[in-house]
Structure formats: C-alpha cells, structure tokens
C-alpha cells in the first residue's frame, strides 16, 4: 500500500516566502513559545505570529502553585525568554474558530488570520466549580492573575479550604502551610495521589501533609460552598459529602485541568478531551486522517504514547510541553520526514522541602516495588512495573535513582516500534 506523500501548504519547502501569511501559533505559553523557538532554530524565516488569550507576556507556570503564592511576587523571574523569536504578538485575544481546510484562524474580535502552518498550543484551563458558589473568595489556579488573586487572599490569613488533593491541590496546601495559613484539604479518593501512584506513595504524601498540620479529609467531597449571604456574598466554608462542614475564608477548587479545545468545536478536528494528534503531533480529523499544516503540542494535545496506543494520553507537565513543541515544530517544517514523539514523561513537585520526581507512566503499573520509604528521612523510591517491565518511578529526595530509572525507560522506549509511518495515512481529501 503506497499512499501519496503528504501534500500540504508547506510542501513547497520549509522556508516559505517572507511575504506569505506564515505560521500561526495559537497559545502563547510554554508549548507555544517553545514551538516558535524551535521553528526559528530549525531555519524557519517566514512570518511567525503568536496568539495568546492572556495579556501578560509568556511566563512559566510551575512556580504559581509553589513559592510564588506566598513568597515575593516577583513574576518577572518567571518570564519566558523571547529573544530571537522575531514574532508578531497578539496578546489578550483568544482564538475563537478554526477553518482547517482554508487554514484560517478567527479571533474573538472578529479578525480572520490566514496561515500556511498552524501550531495548536492552547493548553488547558482549571476545571471550574460548576455548582452554585459565593461570588467572593472562591478561586481556581491556572494563570498569573489567578495566582496573584489567591496569593492576596492567603495573605489575609485564610483559613483555606482546597477541594482536590492532586498535584496542584497538594502544592497549594504546602505553600499555604509554609505561610502558616490553616488548611483543610478535601479529596474524594482514600488518599492524596492514590489514583496515579498507588497506596504506598499516597501514604507518604498523606503523612507529609498531616505532619505539617493540614486537616486532611479523604474519602469525601465538597458538596456545596456556603456564603455569608448578607450581600457581600463571600464564601464562609463548605459542606462535605460525609455530612461535616468546614469553615473557610478562601476556597481553591483544584479538581484538575480541562484541555482548551472549545475554539476548535465544529472544525472537523478530532476532539476527545484534547486535540487528537498522531505520533508526529499532526492534528487528526474525526475520520483519523491527519490535517496538512496543523500540529498540536502541550497540555491540549492527546497523543499516542507507544505504551498507550489507541486513545492516547494528555500530559500537563512542563517537560511534555517543551519536548512535544520541539517535535511538533519539526513536523510542521519538514512534513516529509517527521520524527515520532516518544518521550519518557517526567514531572516534579515541591512540597515542604521534599522534591518529588516522577518518570514514565506509573499509572499503567500492575505492581509497585517499594525500594525505600522513610518518612523520617523524607525519602521515597518506588518502581512501577507492568507485566514485569518497568513503566515508571516516583521518588522523593532521591534524584540519582530517578535518573537511573529515566535511563532505563529511555532505553526501553528506544526499542518500541514507531506509530504508522508518515505518508502511509496520507491526507486524501
């Protein structure tokens, strides 16, 4: 079976004419900026436009749920380097629609922007609280404005109620405790992190938070947020599903993230809690064929990892945005010879002076090997296996071990077969 080579807007060569509409990157955060940088570093000399819905220049998000919340508010430190990008910036504007056939992006002010290549990097947003809520004192945390608002609220002393003990929820709890703010942390699971990392890790995380004085309520969920109802409409606490209630001056809803794909509705791209892409970061249509000239990277992309074929996965981690953006940019510039994206996923989390590091995909494991677990020394070393093969690791204050796991996982992945060969699943429309 020989399909035609991919034909697309960029097949005339990667360095399209300087007078053409060029490449648009929708999303001006980490993945978007890194894609833009990769395009330039790989020789793209045409027009390059970044569209971002925040009015701030691009910045790094990891500090927002950590030291930034209760430390000095020096956001400048977290700005992403933009030197050499030679880009046009459209900030404070959101993309509203995409016509993938004509390659036109429509913005929320009515502007229509044609392009020759498109990078979708719109990231994700915090999952909102959908039930009724008081107007004041209820926060989510995703962007710089969110972090500033939450930081100001915490400076008022709390007490703080956090709904959701995932990565963001536990990091906010740690930051708040460092500033001596009373914290109640609520999660429907039996323990924090248990869904992704299992009982051993969860016990370690639980102990850290309890030792720091967090009022941890697990196996229950926030049913309703209560307010003072006297016109100020400020939050006063929450009612939990176990029948108890918690008083709070500030509430953070930390129930995960939702990929930002609303603007792609009706475009014909395959949307499934993220934009579906193939192994080369090429955006897919609902019929499974890829769209010439459109790639996606970062939190918004749902991609097939060799260990998670089929529906694939989305990852909201810093390193995923960086590495996937690089591959997506390469695919866009050199569509005839793309390379597959097959990273060893990794992330870190800082809580109470403990640095957690994870590599691989521990959530795939059927077996956990506890190699070290010491709450006194604040060290953890867990290896995760599926069918006897290492698929991930989680460590705390054990950096060298993490690196060794990462090397093993990288070696295993190097042997995994690629996805469908480029060109085999050719665009036929």
């Amino acid at each position: 079976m020989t399909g035609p080579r991919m034909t697309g807007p960029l097949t005339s060569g990667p360095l399209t004419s300087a007078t053409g509409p060029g490449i648009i990157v929708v999303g001006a955060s980490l993945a978007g900026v890194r894609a833009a940088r990769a395009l330039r570093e790989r020789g793209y000399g045409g027009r390059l436009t970044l569209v971002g819905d925040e009015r701030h220049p691009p910045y790094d998000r990891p500090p927002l749920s950590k030291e930034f919340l209760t430390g000095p508010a020096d956001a400048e430190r977290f700005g992403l380097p933009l030197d050499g990008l030679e880009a046009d910036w459209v900030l404070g504007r959101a993309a509203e629609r995409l016509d993938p056939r004509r390659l036109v992006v429509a913005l929320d002010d009515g502007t229509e922007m044609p392009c020759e290549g498109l990078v979708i990097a719109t990231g994700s947003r915090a999952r909102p609280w959908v039930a009724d809520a008081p107007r004041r004192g209820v926060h989510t945390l995703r962007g710089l404005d969110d972090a500033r608002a939450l930081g100001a609220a915490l400076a008022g002393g709390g007490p703080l109620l956090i709904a959701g003990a995932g990565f963001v929820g536990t990091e906010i709890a740690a930051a708040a405790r460092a500033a001596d703010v009373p914290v109640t942390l609520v999660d429907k699971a039996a323990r924090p992190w248990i869904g992704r990392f299992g009982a051993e890790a969860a016990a370690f995380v639980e102990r850290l938070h309890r030792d720091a004085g967090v009022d941890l309520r697990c196996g229950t969920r926030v049913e309703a947020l209560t307010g003072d109802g006297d016109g100020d409409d400020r939050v006063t606490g929450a009612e939990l599903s176990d029948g108890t209630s918690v008083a709070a001056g500030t509430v953070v809803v930390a129930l995960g993230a939702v990929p930002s794909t609303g603007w792609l509705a009706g475009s014909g791209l395959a949307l499934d809690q993220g934009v579906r892409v193939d192994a080369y970061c090429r955006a897919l249509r609902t019929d499974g064929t890829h769209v010439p000239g459109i790639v996606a990277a970062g939190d918004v992309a749902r991609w097939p990892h060799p260990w998670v074929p089929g529906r694939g996965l989305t990852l909201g981690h810093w390193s995923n945005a960086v590495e996937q953006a690089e591959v997506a940019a390469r695919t866009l510039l050199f569509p005839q010879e793309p390379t597959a994206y097959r990273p060893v996923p990794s992330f870190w989390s800082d809580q109470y002076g403990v640095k957690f590091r994870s590599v691989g995909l521990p959530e795939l494991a059927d077996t956990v090997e506890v190699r070290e677990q010491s709450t006194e020394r604040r060290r953890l070393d867990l290896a995760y296996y599926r069918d006897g093969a290492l698929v991930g690791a989680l460590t705390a204050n054990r950096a060298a071990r993490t690196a060794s796991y990462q090397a093993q996982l990288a070696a295993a992945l190097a042997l995994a077969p690629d996805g469908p060969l480029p060109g085999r699943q050719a665009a036929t429309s």
Partner: protein
Amino acid sequence: MKTHVDRDLCDNHGQCVFAAPEVFSFDDDDYLLYTEEAGDELQEKVAKAAAVCPVRAITFTGGSLAAGA
C-alpha cells in the same frame, strides 16, 4: 567546550541529567555534579540539557552551538 551551572538558580529538577547523563549526575544527597570540560561531541546533548532546564541555570561556551561563542 565548557559547561557552567548557576548554583543560585539550580533547583535540582534533574532534566539535565536525563538529557546529558555523560555530563550531569546527582550524588546520593541530591547534589548536582557536572563535568565542566566536555568533548565537543557532547555539545548537542549539553545544548539539549540547557534547553530543558526549567530554571535556565545552564550555560555553555566553546562549541559551535554556544550562544555568543
């Protein structure tokens, strides 16, 4: 080529160790170790390590990929 890590910035994330284990490593106390002088054949890996450092603590000079080299 010469590699430098700004210890004031380094937060021991370890991404550099993943990218260029020939140059970067950790000791048992999570202290980052690295080789200041490395052969030019490693500069692509060191460049990758610098690019994936979340706090941009890594700089290098002397190779053809070095900024301002």
